[in-house]
């Protein structure tokens, strides 16, 4: 049996970071956490996670948008699947699910808070499978 897939959660809200970490750990994932965008990007570079769960609208100077931009413009990182999460969606006129058309800011999936955990789990598994095919991860 290989190592469990590694998921990085980036969220500046400690409550949400802890609850999501608990949820993913209990579903068999190896979980890393970062409470701001800069720490998140450093962990992505250092640990090369199999998937990133990213809060888009963090109150930190380096937001989820910046993380996304940095990952997508880095040839070594841009195949890491990113699932974006935010409390802002339609009411700001932001149609984040359409960002897939734009390489610069693209997230692979988008979930609006409060997140449906079971659905999220399902989509994480789908994304991880796609990642295996795309990248041929030896441990998965």
């Amino acid at each position, binding site marked *: 049996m290989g190592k469990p897939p590694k998921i990085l959660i980036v969220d500046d*809200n400690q*409550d*949400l970071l*802890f*609850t*999501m970490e*608990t*949820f993913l750990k*209990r579903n068999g994932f190896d979980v890393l956490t970062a409470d701001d965008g800069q720490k998140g990007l450093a962990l992505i570079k250092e640990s090369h996670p199999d998937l990133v769960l990213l809060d888009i*609208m963090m*109150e930190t100077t380096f937001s989820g948008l910046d993380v996304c931009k940095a990952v997508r413009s880095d040839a070594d990182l841009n195949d890491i699947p990113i699932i974006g999460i*935010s*409390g*802002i969606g339609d*009411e*700001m006129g932001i149609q984040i699910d359409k960002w897939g058309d734009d390489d610069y800011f693209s997230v692979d999936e988008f979930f*609006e*808070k*409060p*997140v449906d*955990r079971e659905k999220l789990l399902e989509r994480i598994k789908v994304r991880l499978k796609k990642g295996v095919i795309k990248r041929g991860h030896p441990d998965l």
Partner: protein
Amino acid sequence: MDHLKKMDRSQKNAPVSTQISDTLLDIGYRGIIDLLPCYLSIQDRSMNILFANENFRKDFGEGVGMPCHRVYKGRDEICATCPVRESFKDKQIHLSEENVHLSDGELAQLIVYSVPVPDMLGNVQAVMEMSTNITRVKQLQKELTFLGQSIAVLSHDMKNMLEGVQGGSYVLEEGLKDGDIALATRGWDIVKRNIGEISNIAQDILYSCKKRDIERHEVPPGEIIRDAAALFREKAAAMGIALGCYSDPSLPSANLDPAGMRRVLSNLIWNALEACKQDKAKDTHNVMVRAVFHARACCAFEVEDDGIGMDEDQLDNIFEGFYSGKGSGGTGLGLFVADKIVREHSGKIEVLSAPGKGSTFRILLPMKQS
């Protein structure tokens, strides 16, 4: 109106069309132009005002003989987007929006039309400028845009809190399932915290929307600050912030609405804790809440923090509804509501603040209140 009265008296029996044309002659075109509910002026090539109607003269001063840029903006150079200059150039009508100063110093936004006035040979010797004051319209437009954005931010915050309640419940359940009391307790703390935050927002919304009569009672001010501070003991401790409380023992009871004043202090203490949280420059922070005398006639409540502080721009806006210095972390209702309640008590809020040093909010309430 005198002209109209005059018409009634002298031409009572004349046909209506004759009456009207005679009235126009009587008033004269200049009189009609003066009556126009807009600013009308005529400028020459040097932008000197040759003629200005009454409305113009009323709001901008006499102005005739002076360059329009001097009258409108007090400057010596022609405005960069001057529509009058454009009309001189291409003999067309132009439109622009301009910010100008009225003669009383007030700023106004105008929508300006410039119309070339040709002579008999078709040369433009003058340009007529007609403008309307749209300051109020622009203000409303700004407020509506701001309101829309703020509701989106409010909705974002509520969703974060709902996520907290949902996530906390999940952690609580998992803890109970495994008999892991520490995990269950942590989940329950998250649920409580987020319910508290939702309740705060809901109360601020109610206070800001509802017209309410304050219910005054004789209360010791020290009791109010202790009650308000007690609500934040746990939060402050979790954030590593020292929350202190002091009440001058000689302060007599005051005639206040205790619930309203607790809300004011809660909002100020909440802001103080958040200001400390945002300040990464210091390792430890303090928030002090006081009830003291001020200039003998006033009871003062003070909330002092040594957090991030505010600059002048922020200070100018803090009491506006939906303005928040906390980015998406604030609803912008806390200080708006605090100010509203304090004004209902015939009091006022003073703020002292400096970036990097912290802020002190002082609520001054007259001791004798009806």
